[in-house]
């Protein structure tokens, strides 16, 4: 069974929990005392990931860190449809990779702002928030044009990819960092659609869609 070195309030760990829930892949969550214990910075933990960060997975001895790399692995290995990480469609795969890098941007802006507010991380909060708004504006327009084309997801396919999962937590938790989504109606409709995916699961701070 996959072991996930996990922290309840981490957006990046949630990306993995969400992906595995959507893929219906069982896993064991190994809680790491990220905060206030800073367990991920201990020498002991650095034996697992020398960079000292989470999430990390250990799939029967195969150890991988970095939130977006783990999404690639999980999708490539456990998705029989080949849709989440579409290796058989180079153009779509390119898009997915491109938006994964966009997700690095949302991590370093929106999620960083959240860490500043929640856990008192020492970041330039104004720069984080301004950066998040810049990215959200771009994504909102992008998603608006997707909707015009009758498409629901970040990439051009009719199905979601790991790009959606990589970006979603950073977006849906942005208000905790003081980044309002009032100006981004397309973004908000997209978060509703992600929440409606079969197998969707929440984390503290994310509200489920209604049951009807």
């Amino acid at each position, binding site marked *: 069974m996959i072991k996930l070195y996990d*922290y*309840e*309030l981490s957006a990046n760990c949630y990306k993995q929990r969400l992906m595995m829930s959507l893929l219906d892949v069982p896993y064991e969550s190994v*809680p*790491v*005392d990220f*905060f*206030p*214990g800073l*367990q991920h910075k201990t020498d002991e933990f650095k034996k697992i990931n020398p960079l000292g960060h989470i999430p990390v997975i250990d799939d029967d001895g195969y150890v991988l860190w970095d939130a977006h790399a783990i999404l690639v692995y999980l999708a490539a290995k456990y998705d029989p449809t080949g849709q989440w990480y579409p290796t058989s469609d180079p153009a779509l795969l390119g898009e997915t990779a491109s938006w994964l890098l966009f997700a690095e941007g949302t991590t370093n802006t929106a999620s960083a702002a959240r860490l500043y*507010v*929640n*856990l*008192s991380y020492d970041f330039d*909060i*104004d720069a984080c*928030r*301004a950066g998040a*708004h*810049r990215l959200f504006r771009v994504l909102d327009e992008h998603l608006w044009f997707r909707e015009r084309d009758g498409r629901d997801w970040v990439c051009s396919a009719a199905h979601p990819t790991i790009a959606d999962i990589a970006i979603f937590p950073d977006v849906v938790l942005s*208000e*905790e960092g*003081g980044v*309002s989504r009032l100006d981004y109606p397309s973004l908000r409709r997209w978060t509703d659609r992600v929440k409606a995916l079969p197998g969707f699961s929440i*984390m*503290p*701070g994310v*509200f489920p869609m209604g049951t009807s």
Partner: protein
Amino acid sequence: MRTALTTTVATTCTDPIILNQWHPLLPLDEMATDHPGTAVLLGERLSYQLDANGAPAVWLTADVDATPLPVLVEYLYVWTCLGSPPDELFAIPEFSEPDRRNVHGGTIGVHVSAPRAIENFLDMGHFPYVHTDVLGVEPHTEVAEYDVHIDPETNDVWATDCIFYQPRASTTSTEGQMSDYLYRVPHPYCVILYKTTPLFEDRMDVIALFCRPVDDDQIQAHMFLSLLDPDNSDTVIRKFQQGIFGQDKPILENQYPKLLPLDPRAETPIRADKIAIAYRRWLSDLGVTYGVIPVSPTSVSMTS
């Protein structure tokens, strides 16, 4: 681009009731000997450091003389005061019981006033909706009648005989239980919950929220636990507690006004809100003005 939500000037506190209270700065074990740290309390930037003997020192960062502020170490935290502090902090005798696990559950920043956070902690009606399948679940949504009183000696506000069905009441629970709750407010910005534990019939777990008011609408919420739980690691206890608080945070941040309105005409109470109403009235009686919207002198006074 600029947004109005960038760092604003903090509202410094001129409320003597709040200035003359002990406030929890941070856990003692997060203070270092070799370099100072900094934190904001009531709009003021403070510096802190452990001296050579390991005793905490706190001072106003802007004060070149570093005049020491009053300091108290209690319940794992370093408390300080910007005014004249009371002789003692409120008592939690359970802290000294030898078989207790005293755990600092973590500190989470929330963009809301301390009184709103206290009131949320006092509320049971949201358990099935915000802490679904843990502290509550439908159809067990009813909040049975409970009692509220003010302790004549300590002036603490108490809610007693609270009872609620909980699928997973604590880290030691393996099945659902009816939890008995006692709530106690011994300080305008601190609240304590006493809760039945599956392990002992006549003793209770203690879970508290000690809020450091950064600003009148911004807090650092310290989660303090004094538990009867010999088995679970601090990591597991923290995961449970932070998970719960992480679910409350977006509710708190989506409430407005952010300052707690003390006027009875501001919001609509139901019987489940008895302790919240008592808390608001208590804050009014104390004369608190920071973190709240006080009842305006011209409004009609409500007699119960």
